[in-house]
């Protein structure tokens, strides 16, 4: 087998539909058509009446999912692009995210957000908006970086009793390949050491894990051993694994594809600075996208997001302090 990240997402959904009669999927063009990215290919046929096309109504899509969750179902909502979840934002952050705390009734919905930049995606088909969801209490925000994690984390997301924002990176959809689907996996909430090293810790997630890995490979011949922590989940954040890595390396670089103000990289640095201050032997650094909308032209886009080269440069600078 040669499985892609998007295959993994399809398979996880097939698995969930097969094993749990409470699961259904609702979203635009996901039925007979199989979804804009084919994440639900053939699922409508395999699971009649459980993979359903919605009108272009993101607010009502999420509202419906919350109602179905109250009734004991486990809906998966596919947003066509993460960027369009902004019009379903209110139902996510104020309806789904508050239900359990207000009423003690859990809200097991999974909102799938095809997110992140691709060449030519432009300002409205590229956004990384995990931060706006992670900031609100009541949501779990996942950012798998590998085919295996796309599969196992989506399965676990559907099984969780809480609303999950599942950020699946479009750039990885067909880019990554794996031999087979995992039969066991790290649980949600645990970060993964994607590469071991002793000189510097790069904490990152989603597509940037691969830029970081490439940067580490680039730095290896220079004698630097870079440790890479793949967060997997940005809320909750596995502070322990980050801290342990920083304890080993003494140096921290946080890399994110999202905009620079606030967000995952700021949160990680704030935690390490507050609680692991003594572990650092150089100021922790961040590398994010630029603070503008995501540009359309590839020349601009590759300058806007951190690339392996930019990560390597930032790492080099930090290693020399």
């Amino acid at each position, binding site marked *: 087998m040669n499985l892609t990240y998007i295959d993994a997402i399809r398979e996880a959904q097939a698995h969930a539909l097969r094993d749990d009669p409470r699961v259904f999927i609702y979203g635009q063009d996901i039925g007979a058509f199989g979804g804009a990215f084919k994440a639900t290919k053939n699922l409508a046929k395999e699971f009649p009446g459980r993979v359903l096309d919605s009108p272009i109504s993101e607010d009502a899509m999420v509202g419906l999912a919350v109602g179905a969750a109250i009734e004991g179902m486990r809906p998966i909502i596919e947003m066509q692009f993460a960027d369009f979840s902004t019009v379903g934002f209110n139902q996510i952050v104020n309806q789904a995210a508050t239900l*359990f705390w207000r009423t003690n009734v859990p809200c097991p919905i999974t909102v799938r957000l095809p997110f992140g930049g691709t060449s030519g995606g432009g300002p409205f088909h590229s956004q990384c908006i995990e931060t706006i969801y992670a900031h609100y209490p009541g949501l779990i925000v996942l950012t798998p970086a590998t085919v295996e994690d796309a599969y196992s984390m989506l399965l676990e997301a559907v099984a969780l009793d809480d609303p999950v924002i599942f950020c699946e990176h479009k750039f990885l959809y067909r880019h990554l390949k794996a031999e087979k689907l995992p039969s066991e996996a790290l649980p949600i909430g645990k970060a993964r050491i994607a590469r071991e090293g002793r000189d510097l810790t790069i904490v990152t997630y989603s597509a940037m894990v691969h830029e970081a890995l490439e940067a580490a490979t680039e730095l290896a011949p220079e004698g630097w051993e870079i440790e890479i922590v793949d967060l997997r989940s940005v809320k909750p954040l596995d502070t322990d694994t980050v801290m342990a890595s920083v304890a080993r390396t003494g140096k921290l670089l946080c890399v994110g594809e999202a905009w620079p103000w606030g967000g995952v990289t700021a949160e990680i640095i704030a935690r390490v600075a507050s609680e692991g201050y003594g572990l650092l032997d150089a100021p922790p650094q961040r590398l994010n996208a630029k603070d503008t909308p995501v540009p359309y032209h590839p020349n601009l886009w590759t300058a806007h997001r951190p690339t392996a080269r930019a990560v390597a440069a930032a790492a080099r600078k930090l290693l020399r302090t």
Partner: protein
Amino acid sequence: MLQTVSDPKPATDSTSTRELQLSAFRFMLLARLLDDKFAALYRAGKIHGGVFLARGQEALSASIGVSLKKTDVFAPLIRDTAGRLAFGEPVLDAVRTYLGSPLGPMRGRDGNVHRGRPQEGYLPMISHLGAMISVVNGVLFARRLKKISGTVGAACIGDGATSTGAFHEALNQAAVEKLPLVLIVADNQYAYSTPTSFQFACENLADKAIGYGVESYSVDGTDLSVCLKVVGDAVAKARAGDGPQLIVAKLLRLCGHGEHDDASYVDPQLKSSPLGRDCLKVAEEFLLRQNWTDAATIAEWRGKFAREIEEAVGQVQREPAPDPFAENWLAISSEHLSETHTNHE
């Protein structure tokens, strides 16, 4: 598609009609007294934040509550004290929520009209207008997937909330899915201070139904008899599988938007128009005229309800207040995924 019912039909004498009206009336009365009590508590400074009353809307709201079965779904809005009680909400739930008791369904975490018991089909509103309708759709959709039939979902909304995108998306969604949704618009002439002329330009909000392909009804919201009939019919149609039903009731809010608001902006002409009639009085007079009850019985109910409310308030006031140290400050149910990391103390 539009059925206008605004003149009281000669009441049929069947006991069921009579019983239904009497039952609805009792909930109207109970609701009014409960609202009066909340107003008094507000004035006495005993309530945190706002108080939102339902005066003038009891006939419509009670009609919804008594038309639903316990297994139905109900998403009331701000002005549904009567409908909530009729759907089965204990007075104690209402009082506990307004006073923030940890023993109430919202446990002091949410308050005033934001209360319900989702697992019993009684959905607690969030504040964002229009947002509850698609949630009702979701429960109905799930029941269909689970092959449970015969459920109706009722959602209430005001004239102002018809301007929200959420209203539109949800009503359309229900229409496309042909869900048994009964959407009741209380057109009480104002959204807070804003008259309907700033809210919509169609003649009657019921005109919207055709654009969604759903059935609609226009009803005089001050008249319990016609409200009961129209809501009952719409609920029956939805239950029979005829898809979403839109009811638009015209009436006037006989209070401020909240108790902090003296409603001085309300047009005096409206107050003295038929819309300005107090539905509770209208219903009482009707029941007396029909000889379905008598003044003494009503007085007895009033006394009984007043005592019930006083007792509930007394009891809740003796209950402990929420204790922040005992509170479980977790926004998710998966405790193992809660951020162990707390940067706040």
